[in-house]
């Protein structure tokens, strides 16, 4: 292997010195500035050493900017990127437009059958896999075992919302800055609305009925948002209306939250003793339900996709195969330890005993991912797919505005009823504009 590598390197060097007869392909990768992607960028040398004819250019951007850039570029067919980091929301929409390169012809050893079925399903349109999952996540309850014990309660593996409320009330100790529950409040379709949409599924709510009429001011949504407000206002931290994933992560790590319902990837952060003051006192449970047969957990996978207009499709495929392979996982494990490998994409990872012992949250993560059903997210029938989103192009715009209304209600600037009335009106308006 190493001989082969050095031979390759030598050939490449010879080619370069011979005057570039050996053409170098540049692959431009747009990615988000999350920890796992930064690590991938840091491991670039490993890839280029094995593929000296490929040069990688990174465009690492903050999530909102990234989404705006790649959407603009693919919609206008700008051709700026050869690999785009996108999520389970974009893949079905872009895939059905024919804007992405199918990955059905990935090499045998990449082993598409090893991908978790829920994740693979979310990235497949009409039998074509349009993106390779880099890491996958669901959401679950993370709680403080010590506070739970102090409150004299025991967290079931699959709690109900009523239990969560009871536990939040018992754990809250505002004088000591301990808040029973921390949830997302910051406005955005991927922020508070991801949480609320997932939560609403367990309350039997849906975004649209079978005729694409929004149901935001309906009974179920009202019940969802009222329950959420009740939890947040009574047992939540101050300033919750601007708290996103980051803010809650920091609160939890500082020991200020009793429970936190959020992305499963957070589990490795809150149990990391370098960053977290409560690393050894964290327990996990499935996202709550309301006895209606659906749980309030979502499903997301940051994935690598190749836009159809790319002029370096083959090289891009090579890179995507490398970054989402089992070998990459092993590479990260050898350098940073098993707890830091990108989770939630492959069955083999969850069968790996080394990973199981390094990651106490592995089982709950897998259970949460498997519990999500993007094709059948809510109790009632829906015309769309997606658990915490609706896979139509208009959703991001609508949900962000709805999220702003709910966030304003959480900040005490309007009532829940007002917020939902406005949300209903703007959703109906945008859907009409889109021609539903």
């Amino acid at each position: 292997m190493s001989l082969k590598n050095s031979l390759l390197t030598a050939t490449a060097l010879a080619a370069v010195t011979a005057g570039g007869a050996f053409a170098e392909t540049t692959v431009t990768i747009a990615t988000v500035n999350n920890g796992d992607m930064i690590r991938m960028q840091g491991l670039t040398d490993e890839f280029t050493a094995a593929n000296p004819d490929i040069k990688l250019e990174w465009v690492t951007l903050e999530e909102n900017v990234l989404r705006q850039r790649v959407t603009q570029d693919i919609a206008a067919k700008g051709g700026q990127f050869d690999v785009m980091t996108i999520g389970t929301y974009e893949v079905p929409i872009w895939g059905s437009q024919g804007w992405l390169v199918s990955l059905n012809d990935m090499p045998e050893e990449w082993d598409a059958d090893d991908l978790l079925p829920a994740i693979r399903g979310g990235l497949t349109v009409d039998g074509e896999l349009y993106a390779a999952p880099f890491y996958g996540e669901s959401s679950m309850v993370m709680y403080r075992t010590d506070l739970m014990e102090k409150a004299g309660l025991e967290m079931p593996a699959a709690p109900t919302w009523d239990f969560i409320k009871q536990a939040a009330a018992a754990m809250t100790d505002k004088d000591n800055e301990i808040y029973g529950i921390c949830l997302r409040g910051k406005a955005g379709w991927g922020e508070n609305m991801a949480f609320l949409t997932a939560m609403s599924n367990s309350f039997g709510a849906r975004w649209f009925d079978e005729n694409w009429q929004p149901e935001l001011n309906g009974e179920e949504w009202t019940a969802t948002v009222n329950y959420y407000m009740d939890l947040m206002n009574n047992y939540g931290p101050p300033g919750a209306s601007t708290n996103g994933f980051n803010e809650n992560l920091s609160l939890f790590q500082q020991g200020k939250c009793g429970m936190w319902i959020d992305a499963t990837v957070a589990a490795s952060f809150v149990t990391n003793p370098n960053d977290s003051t409560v690393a050894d006192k964290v327990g996990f449970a499935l996202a709550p339900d309301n006895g209606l047969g659906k749980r309030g957990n979502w499903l997301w996978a940051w994935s690598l996709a190749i836009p159809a207009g790319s002029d370096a499709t083959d090289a891009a495929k090579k890179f995507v195969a490398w970054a989402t392979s089992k070998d990459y996982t092993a590479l990260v494990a050898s350098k940073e330890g098993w707890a830091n490998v990108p989770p939630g994409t492959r069955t083999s990872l969850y069968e790996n005993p080394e990973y199981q012992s390094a990651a106490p949250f592995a089982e709950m993560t897998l259970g949460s991912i498997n519990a999500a059903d993007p094709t059948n997210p809510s109790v009632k029938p829906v015309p769309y797919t997606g658990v915490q989103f609706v896979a139509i192009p208009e959703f991001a715009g609508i949900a962000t505005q709805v999220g702003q209304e709910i966030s304003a209600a959480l900040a005490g600037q309007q009532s829940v009823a007002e917020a939902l009335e406005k949300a209903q009106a703007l959703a109906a308006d945008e859907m009409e504009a889109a021609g539903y």
Partner: protein
Amino acid sequence: MATQHSRSAARLMMAPAVVLLLGWMLVPLIMTLYFSFKKYLPLRGGDLGWVGFDNYVRFVTSSAFWPSVLATLAIVGGVLVITVVFGVLLAILLNQPMWGQGIVRILVIAPFFVMPTVSALVWKNMFMDPVNGLFAHLWKFFGAQPVEWLSQASLQSIVMIVSWQWLPFATLILLTAIQSLDSEQLEAAEMDGASPLKRFAYITLPHLSRAITVVVLIQTIFLLAIFAEIFVTTQGSFGTRTLTYLIYQRVLESQNVGLGSAGGVYAIILANIVAIFLMRIVGKNLDA
């Protein structure tokens, strides 16, 4: 003095700038107008045909429209008032004899060099964060409940951030103007027993009126377009959605180019109303 020859030469020399700007204005403007009459949804296949004034009607009847116009005016107005008032005071202060004037001037103009994105990030995270921000620590130190700046006082917070960035500009222009003030005139007034307040009102302020006009005009042009400060801090929630931000949401978040373009046309109209208004009120001060 100007001969026929130099007149035509003058036209010729003006041509590049005028042609370029005309192109820069007309090409996007015409394309915006074109899109604004279309149903144009890039994520649904692009051009879906002509729709007349639908986009215009839809944009203006949306519940977000008037609040966004008000938010725009509130931010522009708030920043203008703060920068002009404090700019005048600072200019007067910096014009007094003191030690280390040069260094103080450097300190005061520094915020003007900071990228809007950076200043918004710094203010949001390191000052206005309700848990880890410096303001929160300060409030707690005095036994007060920390303010949730970006949700409870969102508009004020943004006005504050933007004012911080533009105060140096106003101060500099006003300072240069004040330095050109005839000090003998002030001394004579002082001899005559005019109080400092009277001297300010009857001599300094009238002298500054041209400079204030310039500050207001230039800042308005830039303030109508502020975007990064809102994008980084509140993303348009809590009543901080300006017209510019609303257009951004339509074009990029909802990917509705037609609707956003109609919004763009409204924004141009609003900008021109503001401009005409400004010219009427302060234009006579400006002999350009």
